[in-house]
């Protein structure tokens, strides 16, 4: 009996000790971590809507797994929407954020937040050259992928040698746009 009692006491005491230390330690780091995440979000929002959203200048409309919608204000008038979306890429998840004009006519800009595509090929979706072309793309109908120079605002040029990654990014954007349009309609009702 004594032996099993000792087992319970020792393990429980140590766990409580560790719980206490971590609880106390977490109090210090928690604020910093929250701050980091907040600044990271603001960085990306600013990047895709090339506006400087101060903390109260945006509002999260929808927050679900794999899809987030933010409304950006300047003063009281909605200046843009920012959409965070993720989907399956070539190797693993791709998470991206892009800004859209309030009337959903044009995409302002696009940034890749997280990706584990093959370095040197799929990973090129993070390069400036690829991201530049997204500026001003049409957001009011489905986009399509082309291998050569695009000629309409609904065409996006794929990266040579990384067609799967390029298509994945395109699909994520198209799906996110449809979802955002539906969410905005409901929000207005």
């Amino acid at each position: 009996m004594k032996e099993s009692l000792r087992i319970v006491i020792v393990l429980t005491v140590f766990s409580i000790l560790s719980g206490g230390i971590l609880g106390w330690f977490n109090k210090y780091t928690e604020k910093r971590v929250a701050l980091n995440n907040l600044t990271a979000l603001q960085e990306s929002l600013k990047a895709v809507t090339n506006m400087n959203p101060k903390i109260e200048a945006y509002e999260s409309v929808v927050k679900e797994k794999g899809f987030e919608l933010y409304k950006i204000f300047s003063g009281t008038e909605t200046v843009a929407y920012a959409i965070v979306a993720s989907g399956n890429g070539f190797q693993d998840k791709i998470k991206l954020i892009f800004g859209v004009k309030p009337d959903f006519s044009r995409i302002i800009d696009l940034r890749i937040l997280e990706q584990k595509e093959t370095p040197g090929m799929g990973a090129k979706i993070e390069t400036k050259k690829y991201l530049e072309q997204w500026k001003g793309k049409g957001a009011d109908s489905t986009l399509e992928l082309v291998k050569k120079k695009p000629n309409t605002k609904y065409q996006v040029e794929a990266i040579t040698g990384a067609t799967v990654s390029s298509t994945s990014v395109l699909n994520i954007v198209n799906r996110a746009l449809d979802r955002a349009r539906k969410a905005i309609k409901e929000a207005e009702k």
Partner: protein
Amino acid sequence: MSTPILSIITMGSIAAIFSLIIAIAYRKLKVKVDPRVEEIFSVLPGVNCGACGYPGCQNYAEAVASGAAPPNKCTVGGAEVAALVAKIMGLEAGEVERKVARVLCIGDREKSVWTAGYEGPQTCAAANVAGGAGKACSYGCLGFGDCVKACPFDAIRMNDKGLPVVYEEKCTGCGLCAEACPRDIIVIEPIEKRTYVFCSSHDSPKRSREVCSVSCIACGICVRLSPEGLEMKDNLAIVTDPEKVSDQAIEKCPTKVLFKI
């Protein structure tokens, strides 16, 4: 309630529940275990890394206790653990004194006759199958160092004339070199036993003279001089009791094969 208190309660409750389960399981599911396994397991590092080829230290301890595994497979533990395990196993066998490897052949490249060159794989095992790699004596050491490769304690090395030399202070008597030698000329004996007939050839007197200058030619002089200490068995003199071997017998040995190291 502030986070630290909450985290203490969470950790405390999870630990309490699981330690209770362990305690109950420990009491109800007691299983009798061979004490030696426990002893060996306590010496092993318990990393369960599987580097010894056995899935986990517990399994390796059981294998060593049942004699299925040599005591030095634990790379993580290195030499100290291997010596400890060997001691536990050794102790278990009753006598306390240490065992060492002895090479019963001194017919190196110069002293023995080689009738052919050998190009095959440079291992004793392969040479032995390929007719002794040109060494005339069919019992003697082939010199390709299988024993050296097998020894994890670096306690045996080839000398420049192609004959293995045992370093007593490093040898733990684990027997791996004896196992590796295809000609079985290495014996594991207590360290006190120092007098041997350093030859393993059962060839006839005429044949053994032809093949090697330092072989036992079964002349029988030593057996006659100290009958209690030596015995002739199938053309090879064997030391039965080292104390009873007289110095006279050692001097009189024509090929100087019988001596004390």
